[in-house]
């Protein structure tokens, strides 16, 4: 089992470039990449959007995992390929990129779903080889000897009644 995962600056920039093209092409509200642990890997929001992707990421991750389990209970062998939440104003489309990473697209109801699916598929194919690069997982040092003490100090400062 791999203990840690990382994303290099180069990977991040390539992914961001893919997401930026997608959001501009379809005038989407937001596009973000989430992993199975509910973490945001990269995000691109339109200038008018203000919602908190920190919250949306674990919700998207959880709902995708729940859908996968439903599929498994129905006898499906592979993961769910896509999910759609239809709402009054903003729809949400989720599609798997790899077994542990998926793309979340938020778009106005006026944007054609077919277009979203078509361009999402193209974006997935661009993202897959970028995510395969695991060079950012290999590193020897992250924290030095002072880190733990500094973190403890910061935590004490953050808790208002400590």
């Amino acid at each position, binding site marked *: *089992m791999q203990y840690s995962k990382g994303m290099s*600056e180069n990977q991040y920039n390539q992914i961001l470039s893919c997401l930026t093209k997608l959001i501009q092409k379809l005038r989407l509200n937001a596009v973000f990449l989430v992993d199975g*642990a509910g*973490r945001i890997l990269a995000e691109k929001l339109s200038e008018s959007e203000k919602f908190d992707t920190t*919250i949306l990421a674990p919700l998207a991750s*959880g709902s995708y995992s729940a859908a996968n389990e439903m599929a498994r209970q129905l006898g499906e062998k592979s993961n769910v390929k896509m999910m759609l939440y239809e709402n009054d104003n903003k729809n949400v489309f989720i599609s798997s990129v790899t077994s542990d990473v998926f793309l979340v697209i938020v778009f106005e109801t006026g944007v054609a779903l077919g277009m979203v699916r078509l361009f999402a598929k193209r974006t997935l194919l661009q993202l897959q080889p970028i995510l395969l690069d695991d060079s950012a997982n290999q590193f020897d040092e992250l924290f030095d000897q*002072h880190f733990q003490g500094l973190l403890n100090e910061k935590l004490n400062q953050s808790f208002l009644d*400590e």
Partner: protein
Amino acid sequence: MFIHWALKEIHLKIVYYGPALCGKTANLEYIHSRIDPSLKSDLVTLKTREDRTIFFDFLQLEVGYIENKKPKFNIYTVPGQVNYNHTRKVVLNGVDGIVFVADSQREMMDANLDTLLDLEKHLIAEGKTLEDFPWVLQYNKRDLPNIESIREIETKLNFFNVPHFEAIATQGKGVFPTVKEVVKLVVSNVQRHLEDGKRMRA
């Protein structure tokens, strides 16, 4: 753990685990109510109509930059009810540290142990065990009348001698010491894994 080198962010996932109604959500609610607003996300709770956690609660904590790195703690609870087994497995995906919240009431000792064994089963599926994983025990509801002594609970649950804390989560007692300890253990564990990897490659 996930390291975002471009943003200099270190994402660490901490899960509060324990039997139904032991006080996992109460821990998060207290943390959320007492943290500097600029350092926290909203608290998301996915509940049934009966106010029971059906999927998870979620809260992200930040502490700002430390030595040019920004640790972010993604804190989750699991649903405690027995029939939400798969949901607990989903929430544990990518977990870095666990707070096991035990209910101190005497009649809950079997449920505490069953849930701890359930946790071990899920950890094994992730390639981890309770022996080599950062986790702490919190003995909650110490204000109730019919509680087990700490010595007895220790014998029944703390086989691996992990750090333990007495708590009354609804009043905030023991909540911060618990979360600080698990954060400390998680960071030490990351460091240990990195040093092991370095030695293996040398």
